C-alpha cells in the first residue's frame, strides 16, 4: 500500500504539530529557559519542515498517472491480505492472552494457524509446531530463565 507523498506528508505534519503543541506545555528547568520541551520543539520543527517539503515536492511532481493511494499487487490477493492481518492479529492475541493461556498452548496454536495459512502439509505442521514450541520453551524458560507465562498448564506440569 503506497500512499501518495502528499498524504504521508500530511500525516507527519499533523504529528509534528501535535508534538509541538505538547512540547510547548512542558515546563522549563527551574531558573533556565530550557527544559524538557526544548528538544521536542526542535524535533517538531524539523519533522514538520521536511514533511512540508515532501508535500511540496509531491505536489509539483504530480502528473497524468496521479493517484492518492497505490495499492501494491499483494493487496489485491485476498489470501495474502488475510495472512498479513492474521499474523498481526495473532501477535495481538498473544499480548492479550499469554498470561491467562500460557506460552506453550498459544505458541502451538499460533504456529499451527500460520502453517495452515501458508499451506504447510498438516502432519509436518503439527510436528514442527510442537517441536519448535518445546525448543523455545527449553531455551528461554529452562536455560535462560525467562518467566514465560505458564497459564493453563500451571497445574498440569508444574
Amino acid at each position: 500500500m503506497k500512499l501518495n507523498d502528499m498524504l504521508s506528508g500530511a500525516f507527519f505534519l499533523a504529528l509534528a504539530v501535535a508534538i509541538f503543541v505538547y512540547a510547548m506545555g512542558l515546563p522549563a528547568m527551574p531558573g533556565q529557559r530550557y527544559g524538557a520541551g526544548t528538544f521536542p520543539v526542535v524535533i517538531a520543527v524539523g519533522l514538520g519542515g521536511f514533511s512540508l517539503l515532501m508535500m511540496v515536492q509531491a505536489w509539483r511532481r504530480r502528473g497524468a498517472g496521479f493517484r492518492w493511494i497505490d495499492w501494491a499487487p499483494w493487496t489485491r490477493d485476498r489470501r495474502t491480505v488475510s495472512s498479513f492481518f492474521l499474523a498481526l492479529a495473532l501477535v495481538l492475541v498473544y499480548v492479550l492472552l499469554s498470561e491467562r493461556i500460557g506460552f506453550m498452548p498459544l505458541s502451538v496454536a499460533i504456529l499451527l494457524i500460520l502453517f495452515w495459512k501458508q499451506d504447510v502439509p498438516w502432519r509436518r505442521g503439527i510436528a514442527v509446531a510442537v517441536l519448535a514450541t518445546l525448543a523455545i520453551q527449553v531455551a528461554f524458560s529452562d536455560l535462560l530463565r525467562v518467566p514465560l507465562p505458564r497459564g493453563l498448564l500451571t497445574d498440569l506440569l508444574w
Partner: protein
Amino acid sequence: MDTILAALTLIADPYVIVVICLSAMFGLFVGAMPGLTATMATALLVPITFFMPPVPALAAIVTASAMAIFAGDIPGALLRIPGTPASAAYADEAYAMTRKGLAEVALGAGVVFSAIGGIFGTIVLVTAAPLLAEAALRFSSYEYFWLVCLGLTCAVFIAQSAPVKGMIALFLGLFVASIGLENPAGTPRFTFGSTDLMGGIEMIPAMVGMFAIAEVLRALTATGVPLPPVALVRGSIFRGQWALTKKYPIQILRGSTIGTAIGALPGAGADIASWITYATSKRFSKEPEKFGTGHVEGIVESGAANNAAVSGAWIPALVFGIPGDSITAIVIGVLYLKNLIPGPLIFEKQPETVTALFLIFFLANIIMVPFGWLAIKSARYILAVPRNVLMPIVLMFCIVGAFAITNSPFAIAVMLTFGLLGFLMEENGFPVAPVILGIVLGPMLEQSFVTSMIKSDGSFLTFFERPIAGVLGGITILVWAGMAWRLFKQTRAAAANSVPS
C-alpha cells in the same frame, strides 16, 4: 601485554568458544536464507545475548554478523538471489560464473576474500579506535553535539536516494527517543499517564520489530514461490584462490580500504560498500568488458569490501557511541545493557573487554574459512529449508525474544507496532535505518544540545568557539548546505518534469 593475556583468558573459556561456534552456524544459516538479513541475525540474537556475560555476548554478535555477510554470497551464486542485500551487487556476476561451471571458484573467492577483508577492517579498527579515543577524551558537549549531528546527517545524506524521507525517518526516531522520563529535566514526556511508557520505548523490542517483524510481514505478502533446488557444489573451493590473490592485490587492498571507510561512516554499511566497490572494480579494471559475464575480479573486490565494512562500522560505535551501520546500532543498545558505555573511556575502563572484542574479530574472520567451506558444501540442504515453515517460527521467536528483555507483554506490543511501522515505511519508500539511528542517538543529542545551550546561555555562536567543535560544526553546516542545494535542485527538476494535469 597483561591486557592481552587477560583478554585471551576471557576468550579461551570453553563457554565463549561454544557460543562462537553456534553463532557462526546461526549467522551462516540466516545469511544464506534469502529474505533474512545480517541485521536480522543480530536482532534475533540480542534477546539471547541479553543473558550472557559481556564477552560471549559480543562474540556472538560479531561472529554471526560477519558470517551472515559472507553467507549472503551463497544463494547469490547458486540461485542469483542474494542472501543479504550486501551480496546483491555481484549476485549476477557470481551466478554467471556458476552457469559457466565455476561455482566453486565464485564461492571460494567469496569466503577467502571476505575473510581477508574482515581481517583488514579489524586491523584498522584495532589501530584507529584507540587513537581516536585519545582525541575524543578532550571532547565536551559541543564536540559531541556536532559529531552526532554530522553522524546523523551522513546517515541520511550518503545512504539514501530520498534524503527528505530519510530526514523524516530520522526525526521520527528522535521523537521516539524523547518518549519517557529519561531526559535532562527528568520530566515525563508523551507518556499520557501510562506507566509502561514512563521508562521510554525499549530499544531492543523496537529493533526486533523494525528488522525482523517487518521482514516476516514482507515474506507473508510476497507471492511465495519456493526456491528451486540447487546442486551440490563439487570440487575444491580453495583451488586457485592463491593465484587470484596474486593476480588482484590492488583490488583486494582497494576493496578492503573503501569497505572499512564506508563501514566507519555512520549509516552506510556493508551493502553500500559492496555496490560502490563493485563499481570501482569495474571502473579501474583492465578488462571491464568481462564484467557481467562471470568474471571474478569484482567479486574479489566487493566481497572483501562488505566484510571490511562490518569491522569498520565498529570504529565510531566504540569510540563515540555513534553506530556505523544498522548492525552496530543494535550493538550500541547491547553495550548499554551490559553496562559497557561506548565512548572514549571504554578503552581505559574496560581494556580487557575491548581487547577481547578485537581478538574475537580476528578469530571470527579466521574461522570463517572452515565454517564457510562447510556452509558452501551443505548449501543444498540449507536452501531446501522451506520458508513457509521458517517465517512463522521466526515470528514466534521474536515474540518470546521481545518479552525476554523486560518480562512484560508491553515489549511485544512495542515490537508489533514497530514491525508494522517498519513495513509501512518501506512500502512507502522511507528508509528504516535512520529511525533506529535516531532512537539510539536521540538521548546523546538531547543531552549534548541542552547542556551546551545552558552553558552558552542560549548563544549558538559558542557552539563554534572551541577549535575541534568549530571544525566539526563547519563541516556539518557545509554538508547541510550541500544537502539543501541538492533538495532545491531536485524540487525544481521535479517541477520541470511534471506534466500539468
